[in-house]
């Protein structure tokens, strides 16, 4: 069963993939880098946009995603957040 811990990890992996590409990535690249199916990718992208961790932009080459300041802060604090969530049993069921 998927838990929020998995989700937090996936958020981290996706944001890190965007950040490693100079803060901007195409959905196909992101799907490959984060190892997600198309439908899962869309679900997580929607969640990342909702949490204001990324923004969707339209370019001549199609859709791209850019990491926000909040997304960068999430990457920075991820390790402490995970330790806190784990130790206090705050994982959420999906």
């Amino acid at each position, binding site marked *: 069963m998927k838990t929020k811990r998995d989700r937090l990890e996936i958020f981290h992996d996706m944001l890190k993939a965007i950040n490693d590409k100079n803060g901007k990535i195409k959905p196909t690249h992101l799907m490959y880098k984060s190892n997600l199916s198309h439908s899962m990718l869309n679900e997580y992208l929607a969640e990342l946009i909702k949490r204001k961790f990324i923004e969707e932009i339209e370019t001549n080459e199609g859709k791209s995603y850019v990491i926000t300041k909040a997304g960068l*802060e999430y990457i920075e*604090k991820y390790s402490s*957040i995970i330790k806190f*969530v*784990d*130790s*206090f049993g705050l994982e*959420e069921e999906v």
Partner: protein
Amino acid sequence: MAVTYYFAPSWFIIFGIIFEALFAIILISISLIAYKFYRVSKQEKLKLFSLAFGSIALYYLIKSLINANLLTSGDITRAQLLDLGQLSLFAHIFFMLAGLVILLYISLNVKNSRLFSLLIVIIFLTAFISRNSIAIFYSISTVLLSYICLHYYESYKKKPQRNNLIVFIAFLLLLIANLDFIFSIQHPILTVIGHFIEFTSYILFLINLIFVLKK
């Protein structure tokens, strides 16, 4: 002899006040860190957890302030004493039980506002209509803590890591302290023992927080 809200030997009263102020500081620190992490991650449970620990911190803070006030007020009337006693009791009912209900709700892993409201109503009704209030409140707290402990035990079994064990033991000690407080009316020395158990528990929470924040 000074009069305070709880049943304790007079030599311990000042220590009790210091202990409770200390518990409040530890709980506020954990609550603030949880809220900070919520703001970064937008993880709902972190917000609820922050609220729960903040609520329990308020309980200790109010109790400590009221007892400190009673200790320093030499010419307090009986009516004022009863008012302060009622206020402290209300703080116990509201903030402590609210905090524990939120923790229980988090541990149940169900997103259901009706279940949450049902828990709140049943627990608060029982608490308010009971006559032997203090014993009833500690009994309810003990029941809630038993379920919370079970959650942390399962959490530790699932992920047998040092931090999970620390948190489980901390909640287990809180449960033992609450059990102890149920009988403190008959034996005031149990209040002293209970405070030392609580102290150990909150120190463990603090140790876990330090481990979490350590790079």
